[in-house]
Each structure stands twice: as C-alpha cells, then as structure tokens.
C-alpha cells in the first residue's frame, strides 16, 4: 500500500540520478514479462534447430490463433473480476452449428452468421445470469459450459459435421502476405481489443468495475450493462474462433476445444491480468499467449517425450510467473 506513494507525490525531492534509476526499474517492471519472453525466444532460436524459421513462426502463430482471439475477450472478463469457463464449449458448438447451418442452407455466410449469433447468445445468457441474477460467474459458466457442450453433441449426434462447400475452407487456410487468415484475424483482435481496453470508455469502465465495482456503480457506470457486454462479446469471439477452427479442420467437431478455457485463462494470468480484477494490459496478454505457444512448439521440435512434456510445461509456467514476481518482491515492504 505504501510503496509507491513517494514517487507519485513527488514531495520527497529526488536527485535526477535516482529518478532515472527509478524510471528504469519502472520500465523493467512494466515490461518484465516481455523481457522474459524475449530471452526465452532468443535462447530457443539459438539452441533449437528449425525454431527460428519462417515456417515454424507461421505455424506457431497459427497454433495460438484461437487462444489469442479469445484471450483478448477473456482479458476483459478477468479485468472486470469475472470468469468464463464456457468458451471451450462455445468454440465447439459454434463450429458444429456453423457446419450444420451451412450445409442446410448451402450458404457459408449464413452458417458463419448463425454461429456468431449463437455464440453471442451464449455470452448474453452468461452475462445476464451473472450480472442480473447475481450468480457466481464460476458456477454460471461451468453450467453453460456443460449445457453448450451438450448442445454441440446433440446437434451433431456426437459426430464431426463436414462442410461440403469448399468456400468455407478459405477462412482457415487462405494466406495473405505469408500469414494465414486466422493469424491476421488474431492480430486484428489484439489491436482492436488493445484499443478498446485503453482508449475507450468501455475499456476504462471495465477496469473500473474490476478495480472497485461499488465505486463504479456509485459513479453512475452502468455496471450490469458493461458486464453483460463483456460476456456477449466473449461469446461472439469464441464463436468466431470456433468457426475458424472448423474451417481449418474442414468440419465442425463437437469435442473440440476441451480444456481451451484453462489455456486461455492461463495465458491471461501469465500475462499479468489480475484475477482480482482491475489490472490488465494487452501487451501482457499477447506475451502470455506467445509464451504458452512457444513452449509447446519448442517441445515438439525438441521431440520431448509426451510424458515429460507435462513436467516441462508446468515448470516453465512456474518459472515465468516466478521471474515476473521478483519485481513485486523488490517492491514489497
């Protein structure tokens, strides 16, 4: 509580040298995770064959594209002190639903739109139940996670739904300027949600709600509406991720995206988004997503045994947050 007061107040006169030092540390603090990632990246490039190649980079980006998209909206969700476990199911359901509708109507566009609307609807239900009925977000989204997964199975009879229209596959496999469409969409999401978070009322209100919901409410922020919007958009983006995944796989699969939600949340938390709300940066989330993807990618390249991959993944996760934590120790009383 007391740590940084002096700096902000500027009442204790600092020497220019110590000020510069403080600013440097501040920068290291703010970007420590990025530095960790850069270090990791450099080490891997130097030691792992094929790691630093265009093919591999393109593949790496593609592999995190779904997680990356949804991490953007999950960032909002966590920043407002909420939680969403239903995204993995939404990914699956949207893919299946898109395929079914596209097959039935013969139109890919209609299929995609239907899936997006369905995803937004799932999000709307989540948001309405959580904000209006005031039910714990964990339980609510756990429930919708089950329900939506069930819907995915029911509507597909548990089978993958292939799409006959070839146009559909372009979404997932076409490539623009050397990167595939899903990667571009993910980059777009990073940019869009970065601006949303930092530059718009919506983003600032989200942070305010997460930082202190009462204060936000008392200041006249339409707390319920913002929370519902957050979930709605999350549902929409999860559906988009699902559609893209289905397009990449040329079929909608009802058991896709299992464990997706934990990956997304981990990426966010790794990226410094506070589960207690109020704190989030898009750069952190991007790095979080990249670290997760890079570790997995490098392990595959290094041909690490499947069983040992668990151990390595866990250890790296721990080390990354640990190093990131060191700054807080330095700051602590």
């Amino acid at each position, binding site marked *: *509580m*007391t740590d*940084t*007061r002096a*700096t*902000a*107040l*500027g*009442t204790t006169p600092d020497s220019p040298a110590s000020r510069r030092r403080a600013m440097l540390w501040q920068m290291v603090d703010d970007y420590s995770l990025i530095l960790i990632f850069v270090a990791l990246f450099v080490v891997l490039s130097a030691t792992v064959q094929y790691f630093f190649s265009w093919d591999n980079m393109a593949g790496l980006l593609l592999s995190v594209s779904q997680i990356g998209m949804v991490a953007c909206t999950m960032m909002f969700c966590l920043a407002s002190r909420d939680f969403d476990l239903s995204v993995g199911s939404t990914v699956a359901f949207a893919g299946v639903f898109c395929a079914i509708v596209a097959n039935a109507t013969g139109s890919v566009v209609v299929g995609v739109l239907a899936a997006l609307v369905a995803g937004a609807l799932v999000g709307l239900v989540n948001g309405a139940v959580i904000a209006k009925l005031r039910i714990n977000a964990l339980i609510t989204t756990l429930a919708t996670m089950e329900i939506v997964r069930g819907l995915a199975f029911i509507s597909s009879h548990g089978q993958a739904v292939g799409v006959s229209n070839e146009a559909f596959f372009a979404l997932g496999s076409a490539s623009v300027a050397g990167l595939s469409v899903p990667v571009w969409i993910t980059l777009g999401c990073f940019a869009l949600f970065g*601006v949303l978070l930092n*530059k*718009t*009322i919506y983003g*600032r*209100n989200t*942070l*305010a709600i997460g*930082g*202190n919901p*009462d*204060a*936000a*409410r*008392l*200041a*006249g*922020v*339409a707390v319920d509406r913002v929370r519902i919007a957050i979930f709605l958009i999350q549902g929409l983006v999860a559906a988009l991720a699902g559609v893209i995944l289905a397009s990449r796989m040329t079929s909608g699969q009802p058991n896709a995206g299992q464990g997706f939600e934990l990956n997304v949340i981990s990426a966010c938390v790794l990226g410094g988004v506070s589960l207690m709300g*109020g*704190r989030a940066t898009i750069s952190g989330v991007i790095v979080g997503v990249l670290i997760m993807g890079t570790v997995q990618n490098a392990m595959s390249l290094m041909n690490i045994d499947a069983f040992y991959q668990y151990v390595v993944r866990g250890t790296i996760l721990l080390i990354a947050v640990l190093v990131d934590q060191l700054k807080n120790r330095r700051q602590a*009383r």
Partner: protein
Amino acid sequence: MHSAPRLAFRHIGKRFPGVRALDDVGFSVRAGSVHGLLGENGAGKSTMMKILGGEYVPDDGEVAIDGQAVAFRGAADAIAAGVAVIHQELQYVPELSVMENLLLGRLPTRLGLVDRRRALAFVRDRLDALGVDLDPRAKLKQLSIGQRQMVEIVKAILRDATILALDEPTSSLSHRETEVLFRLVRDLRAQGKAMIYISHRLDEIFALCDAATIFRDGRKVADFDTLQGVSRETLVQRMVGRDIGDIWGYRPREHGPVRLSVQGVTSRAVPLPASFQVRAGEIVGFFGLVGAGRSELMRAVYGADRRLSGEVSVDGKAVRPTHIRDAIRLGLVFCPEDRKEDGIIGVRSVSENINISARRNHLVAGLFVNDRVEARTADTYIERLRIRTPNRRQEIRLLSGGNQQKAVLSRWLAEKNLRVLIVDEPTRGIDVGAKNEIYAVLYELAARGVAVVMISSELPEVLGVSDRVIAMSRGRIVAQFARGEASEERVLAAALPEGAAPSARQVTP
C-alpha cells in the same frame, strides 16, 4: 435567507435484518446552506446519505427535492438529479488515475475514443481553480489516504451537483487539506448549493454549518435552525443523552520502569533511525502532520513492516524484526489506522473480529476454540464500548464505521498479557461519547501498568490524553514534551517542516 428547502427527508424509515437503522426521520436543507448531521456511531447518518445517493431504497417515507418527491432506483438516478454523495468508506478505483477516477462514468470522447488530452486539461484546470494540488496522472493507489479523500471530494464537486452530502470527509485529511476543504465548502455554499455535512468533530460543525440535526438510535432527537448561541455541551448532551463533563478526564499516574524500548529502528519507509522509550503506566502521544511517518515507524516497531535495523524490546526482551506473533506474545500490540484494509475482517462476525488474537490464551487442549469465553469477551466489549450491533454474530462489515473501529480496538483490549499498546488514530470516526470511553480504557490500562503509544493527528487529543508528547516530522522524531511543557503552539511548531507557517487547527471534540 428564508428560501424553501432544496432538499427534504420525510418520515424516512429503513430496516436491516435485526436493525432498525432509521425510524421516521425527517429534516430539510436549504439551498445555500450547510446542514450539519450529528449523532453517535450507528445513529443512522450514513444510512440516510445512502438513501439520498440512491443506494438504498427507504422502507418508509420519501426524499423530496424542491418539494418534489423523488424515487431513486440507483446511484445513476441520484447523479442525474444533481445529487452527489461523498461516502464515509471511500469509493475509488485504485488502479486508475486521478483523472479517470474524477471523470469516472463521464470521460470525454472524440471519435469514440477517450480524449485523454482534453480530459487532463479539464481536470488540471478545475484542480487549479479549486486550489487543490493533485497530479491528475497519478494512480489512486499511489496517493496517501488523505489525498484519496480529496479526490473523492473533488469528484463530487466536478459533477456540478446542486445537492452535496459529505460523510465524515475530514477523517483522514491533513490540516492543510482540511482548510482547502473548508474553503471549497464555503465557496459552494456561496454558489447556492445545498449541503449536508457529517462529522464527529464539533468544532468543524460550528465552523461550517448553518443548521444541524441530531440523530440518536435511528431517530431524530433535535433540529437546530441555527447554531448561533448553541453550546457545545448542548450538542453533546443531545447526541449521547448524557453529560460528558471533562472529555479528557485525565488524572496523573505513577510511571514504572521502561516497558518499551525502541533503538535506532529503520525500515524501507523509515529511512532514518528512530529511538524512543515508554514506561509502564505512561501514555505517550505521537503527533505529526499526515505523512510524518508515525504509522510507518510503529509498523516497523511491531514487525508489520520488515525492520531493517535497530532493536525493539519489551521489558528487556527483544522482539524479532518480522515476527508479529513474537511481539504479541511479549505483550506488544498495534492497532492499525486503516480500518478497512488492515483492521476488520469484513465477512466475519463481530465476535470473531474481537477474539481473533486473544483466543489463543483460552484454547481448550491447545486447539479448540472456547466459545463460551469468547462470547463473554465479545459481549463485554460490545457493552463497554457501546458497539451498536444486533448481536455479536453480525458480520462486522454491516456495522457503521465508528462501531467497526470500536470492535477492532476491542481486539487489542482483550489481550490478556497486554504490556505495550500502540494505537494508530484510535478515535478516527468515533463519536464524542465513545471517545470518552476509549480514553477511559486507555487510562485504565495505563493504571494497570501498560505502556501506551497513541498516534493522533488531533493535537488537542494528543495534549489532553498524553503524559508525554513526541513530535515527528518528515520521518524523524524532532521533539519531546512533558505534559506540563506541551502546548499547541510548541508542539505544532516542532511538527511543522521548517518554514511552513503554522495556523493551528482548533480541534476539541
């Protein structure tokens, strides 16, 4: 000055489970006036303000603005009607900047994006015009409590509300900040705003208010159209229902050997080594302006902050630097100033909050909690300090601010093996009657041989209660005064950073 009331409360009633917070209460406030609202802790003042702010819907009665009944269904309604309430419990967003907190809910935009430049310029302008010295870009969590409180006040003012309610706004303000606030309030009055001002400091009421209402136990007991000619004693009498003769009630005591010895203590927040001693039976008052470093010094003494160097001992036994439990076992306890952050455990009962530390002294078989003893302890202090709660099982967050403070204080009074008691702003937000009780408790402890350290920002309180006064300034102990030598001028002169011109705050409860 005989305009119709801008704001009127009519027959307001409000119940909570087990508590009747307000019972058929009404009063009215004229435009261009400051209306004082007084009452004991738990009398219902804050509840009334929450009704005004749209947070609570009254069970009975109504609020009227300009004679027109209004029914707020949320804070947004109240804001739209031109009402701004500054709450007793500060409501800010720690991670956001001063500017964003001030404009929360109404940030200016350009092309859909927040126009930071314009917002900053606007806020800077207004802060300058108001004469408030705050950096609009600093995050709230970087500010002192007093500065956060200033942000709250400015936030309300910036809304250009016509009705303004201030619920204990000065409880954490420095002397200078208080003066700024007073000036702001007087300006606003001149602009014709209707204001409600809640405080337990009667001199503030006399200094600011044109009229006043007194609550007791959720009912209105007195209305004063004017405070001209009304005496302090009258107000106190109506508030607490009895006469409080000499508020300090000080009696000289014998002092024993040195109990607490602090030698060259430093911590991250206390860079310069500090030393002092307190004898058994002695009450030492620590005075300083806000930010003088008193709290930080005591946190280091207690072990709440890591001690970097120096020795602390109780009756000659050393207290290890980071071991709070060590300190407590040796009888050294510390009651922190920030009630909400460091004091109460909100979702736990009053009894739990009182017994959390002392319970280790009466465990059964070293593990099991002795509920009977704990219930007795809790009830004792609830009665002794007049903690207003339906029962000891009530969650403490549901108590009024002052009553929470009393419960936290009880936690330490309940320590059996108490040898050194450090209290940081023990009477902040506490009503006159309860203050009197707390002083009595301090004397009683001192008489039993406890060494007492009291940090307070209210000079008269320090002077009235202490056997010895220590003044701090800029993180250093700068002067000591025996009771006889300590006067307001001398202590204040010592506590002020050199150069600053003193204008003593005339605070007597």
